[in-house]
């Protein structure tokens, strides 16, 4: 196999297998993701999309196989991987009792990133939350709370975005916003993996992997 830095992929999986509650969700799953590539994970409900994403970011352990970050096993380069990757699950990660600004600050703090205020304001303006800095998050709608997360993604400046259902609770403009964010991210050489039930129209090349087919008949 090719070694560490010669490989152009930033994220790679080899022969991943996931069993959940006695059910084989997928096995032998090998994905390669290069810089500047966007990958959509498709599949029916319960086909293991969320499990796959959680395995990719190291929250869940695969039942077999490995995940490589820039050619190296993720568990060995955790710090570097987590500094360059951002994961957004379908839970909001937002504290209702903190304000929009405090929420963003505390999310960035866990990544050890300190960002100047005007930059945060720019990001908030971009996601349509200008002027909401000091509003407690519990006063926001669920779509607006998702937008806080979008601002967080913009500010984190990670090279790899792993997003589980990023369009949840977003309106039409919100969906367009995510699409444009993905495009810009891609143009800047970033990569992304996401799942979605909604149609996502990206005017660019986008690969997709469908779960739940390759194991038909197996088990």
């Amino acid at each position, binding site marked *: 196999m090719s070694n560490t830095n010669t490989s152009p992929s930033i994220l790679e999986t080899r022969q991943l297998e996931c*069993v*959940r*509650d*006695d059910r084989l969700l997928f096995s032998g799953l090998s994905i390669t993701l290069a810089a500047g590539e966007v990958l959509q994970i498709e599949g029916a409900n319960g086909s293991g999309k969320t499990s796959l994403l959680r395995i990719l970011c190291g929250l869940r352990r695969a039942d077999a196989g490995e995940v490589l970050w820039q050619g190296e096993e993720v568990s060995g380069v955790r710090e570097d991987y987590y500094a360059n990757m951002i994961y957004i699950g379908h839970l909001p990660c937002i504290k209702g009792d903190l304000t929009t600004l405090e929420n963003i600050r505390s999310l960035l703090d866990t990544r050890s990133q300190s960002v100047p205020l005007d930059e945060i304001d720019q990001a908030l303006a971009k996601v349509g939350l200008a002027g909401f800095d000091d509003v407690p998050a519990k006063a926001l709608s669920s779509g607006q709370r998702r937008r806080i997360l979008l601002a967080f993604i913009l500010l984190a400046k990670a090279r790899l975005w792993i997003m589980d259902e990023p369009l949840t609770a977003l309106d039409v403009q919100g969906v367009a916003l995510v699409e444009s964010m993905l495009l810009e991210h891609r143009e800047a050489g970033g990569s992304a993996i996401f799942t979605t039930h909604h149609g996502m129209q990206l005017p660019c090349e986008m690969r997709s992997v469908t779960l739940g087919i390759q194991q038909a008949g197996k*088990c």
Partner: protein
Amino acid sequence: MFKRIWGWIQRFSSPKHFYDISGKMIPWFAVSALLLGVYGLYMGLFVAPTDYQQGESYRIIFIHVPAAWMSLFIYMVMAIASAIGLIWQIKLADMVAAASAPIGAWFTFLALVTGSLWGKPMWGAYWVWDARLTSELILLFLYFGYMALQSSIEDQRTADKASGLLAIVGVVNIPIIHYSVEWWNTLHQGATVAKFDKPSMHIDMLIPLLVMAFAAKLFYAAVVLVRARNEVLMRERNRQWVRELVEKI
């Protein structure tokens, strides 16, 4: 060398291989446990001399002491098996740990019951807050906690790991608990009554005791293998080899 050993470990710990091997081992363990147990009980209850202080009632130690030893021993086994399962991801170790817990709890319970039966003539009460009995009681709580956690998490793998970690935390705590209970007991027990101390024990008492301890270990080995085999079948029920096995029957 290391690789070969590792390969051997993995082969042996594959559920199917374990199922085959353990099936052959169980009768041996069971029969020898039975023979030793009968011999030990006979020696203990009829041959061993009467204790000059406690009369005949001391004979319950031939059950009580092995049970108390086993209660602690099995918890150790659980913790070690859990550590192996957690670190090296060997599923079989997790299954052994899970299969051991109820057996350990039963031995603990047995030690408590026999202890209080012994206590009635000695202390005049079924329950006295004696250091050893109290330690056993806490150990029983630890077993209950392990089993409750194991059964309340639905995903089997997560349940194994979570309860395994609890077993390890428990094992680190057992010496501390034991020490504090001992200390607490000496503090509060002004006039010490007869205790389960082992003064220089007569050799005719010691031998049956050791035989019984050995029988208990063999009994545990047999039962844990039976339970672990069931566990294997349960968890691997969707695998080819289990299906073939079922069809054969």
